[in-house]
């Protein structure tokens, strides 16, 4: 039974150092560089503009919006077709028809050859609430997973699982911080799905470890995790592959709006697969899980 194809454990140490380094870098990025929050969480106004008049350039747009006194303004290209994404601090309120005013002013600057395809305006109160509920949702899902694994397995397993999840979430957010990708509501949805997916990956390996622990009393946990990871390896790879196929398809063909979401998910699936093997399982070794741990459960 000891003849497994790949000796994952041999690299545990190296990969542990690697993982810890990545986590530290991510946390540092999150602390010092921070996240690029979109209007959902920062408040303000977002306009997706399509220029039907091909003469309209990005610098013209930028200049026009800067002249309108809207606070901090960013203008960037958004996909193809002369689409632009404009964001500014000021938000719509009752006393003035901000969007209408912007439309009118812009017509004066660049002519009528454009239309607003999407407008999102979020007040400070709502954005604070959205951010809060986003953080609560992620925290709650981590807690729910911790409890679920605890109930289905043992506390050692839930520690391993939760650390793996934290790793996935931190690294995904770290990448978003590094490249200043925008964080909006759909990214929160992506992070929650990553939590579910990564957990699902971890659970399958844990399930096998538990089964093998019951079966073999003479194999130490070190070899046992290795056997279990190998036995489930093809499933891990196939599932990650099909999920990634679906996600890449969303990323490439699903349109601009889903780009951030699918990118976060792609990262999360990769990190999640990695962490199931190199974080969740080594923690079990670290916590000295043995046949006793499992049998105690059966007695209860």
């Amino acid at each position, binding site marked *: 039974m000891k003849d497994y194809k790949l000796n994952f454990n041999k690299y545990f140490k190296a990969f542990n150092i690697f993982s810890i380094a990545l986590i530290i870098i991510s946390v540092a990025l999150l602390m010092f560089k921070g996240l690029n929050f979109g209007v959902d969480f920062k408040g303000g106004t977002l306009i997706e503009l399509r220029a039907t008049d091909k003469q309209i350039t990005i610098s013209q747009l930028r200049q026009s919006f800067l002249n309108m006194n809207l606070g901090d303004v960013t203008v960037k290209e958004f996909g193809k077709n002369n689409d632009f994404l404009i964001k500014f601090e000021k938000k719509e309120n*009752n006393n003035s028809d901000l969007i209408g005013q912007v439309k009118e002013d812009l017509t004066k600057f660049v002519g009528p050859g454009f239309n607003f395809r999407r407008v999102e305006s979020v007040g400070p109160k709502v954005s604070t609430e959205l951010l809060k*509920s*986003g953080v609560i949702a992620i925290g709650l899902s981590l807690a729910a997973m911790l409890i679920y694994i605890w109930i289905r397995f043992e506390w050692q397993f839930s520690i391993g699982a939760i650390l793996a999840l934290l790793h996935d979430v931190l690294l995904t957010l770290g990448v978003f911080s590094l490249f200043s990708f925008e964080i909006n509501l759909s990214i929160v949805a992506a992070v*929650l799905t990553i939590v579910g997916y990564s957990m*699902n990956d971890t659970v399958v390996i844990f399930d096998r470890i538990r089964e093998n622990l019951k079966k073999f009393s003479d194999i130490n946990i070190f070899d046992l995790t290795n056997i279990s990871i190998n036995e489930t390896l093809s499933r891990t790879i*196939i599932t990650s592959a099909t999920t990634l196929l*679906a996600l890449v398809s969303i990323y490439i063909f699903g349109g601009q*709006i889903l780009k951030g979401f699918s990118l976060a998910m792609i990262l999360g699936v990769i990190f999640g697969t990695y962490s199931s093997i190199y974080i969740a399982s080594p923690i079990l070794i670290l916590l000295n899980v043995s046949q006793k741990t499992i049998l105690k459960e059966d007695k209860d």
Partner: protein
Amino acid sequence: MLYFSKIKIISIIIFTVIFSYFTASNFFKFDDNFLKKKINLGLDLQGGSYLLLEMDNEPVITQKLQIKLSSLKKYFKNENIIFKNLKLINNELIYFELNQEFVEKFSSLLEDKNSDINPYYQRFKTHEFDFNVKDNVFNLKYSKYGLVELKKTSLNQALEIVRRRIDEIGTNEPNILRRGSDRILVELPGLDDPQRIKSLLGKTANLTFRFVVQNEEPSFGSEKLTTEDGLEELIVSKRIIISGENLVDAKPRMDNQSNQTVVSFTLDRVGAKRFGKATRSGIGKRLAIILDGKIISAPVVRDAISSGSGQISGNFTFQSATDLSLLLRSGALPAPLNIIEERTVGPDLGQDSIDAGILALIIGFFLVILFMLFKYKVFGLIANVALIFNLFLLVGILTLFEATLTLPGIAGIILTVGMAVDANVLIFERIKEESKIEKNNILAFDSGYNRSKTAVIDANVTTLISAIILFFLGSGPVKGFSVTLGVGIFTTLFSVYFIARLLTSLYVTRNKHKESLI
């Protein structure tokens, strides 16, 4: 695990056919009236506007306290209770002093559950007002539930007014919902430019007719107001002749004499009587028509108007006169509404999103199908058939419940396609392992299914937990994602354990003597 009874097989087939029918009903028009159901497209897909309005309750509270104040005054006078310094402090506290002999009697009145002075809410076990007495000084303040009740009432009123205003404009299938204690959610499908509705919802539409007073300085009974164009300032009496409540109808009209657009109105009986009396005594005076604290116009009264109808002139365009009539017909909001969140998607972007979403779904679906065929051959085919029916079931269930499909919702379906094969992969991989030890195909498949069960269930429960949390804490389109992801888990388990297993069982029992089936 491989045995299916006849009844089971038939029910699986019936179940699958029914939901596939629902799915198909989204794409083809069936003539019959049997269960006409369709998936709703979210605002991000069909285009439209989402507005979140928040009511500013401060003015309502102040207003209600003022009414309370005058009713107290009236009560004291009627009952010959001697009081002094009756006043409102900081717009939140009613203050007054009573002569010592009345203190006890009035305190007990405030605590009386049957008195109208301080109404008692049986439901909350509390009075409308909290009060405290020190010597002969009374302080009255809204109790916690008094405020809750007040907000509820005014929000319900506002909801009704908002509904009327939107109905008058006539957009298709608006969705107007209460959110929390002071918010109203308005969803307007198919509306790509919500400017007009926004400006109509942003107005309180508090209309009053009051006389202009001549004295220079505003005194106790009057206030200084500006005209809408901001050019003129007039001192106007605080005494209201008639208000918007007295109006029974308002219409934009072309005035033949001046060739201007005006708003003509009809008053109710009380209003007509008061208006007639006031105009009779006020001939030669200017009557200011005030909307939300701004003077629309202040014409000079020439004749007594007792017919109960009249007209408002001002610098109206036909559009603005139409809007004003609409506002007057639908009534005044109890308090101003602020737009605190707006999301608008144009219909062309919505269509682009649908196209992109469907393209991504088709491509993702084919990539996964090809991968599975390549990897598992016959069993890949079985998994793929299950996957196709999984998709039918998923869309069918969404149709049955007339769920709202959003762009993230489509992403959820694509993701389900990617993750759904996982259960079959887990099972097939397990069967492969089992058949290394167990040479009897049927036994190997049986234990493969049995032994992989816990992993499959656990793996799906974790995703379900995420979906449930997202459903309760996510907002807008993201909620649509959690719905498709969550429903997708159930349809996946059904398609894997019933459809795929049924097909597997048929295949395996026919080929049980072949070697290395998988």
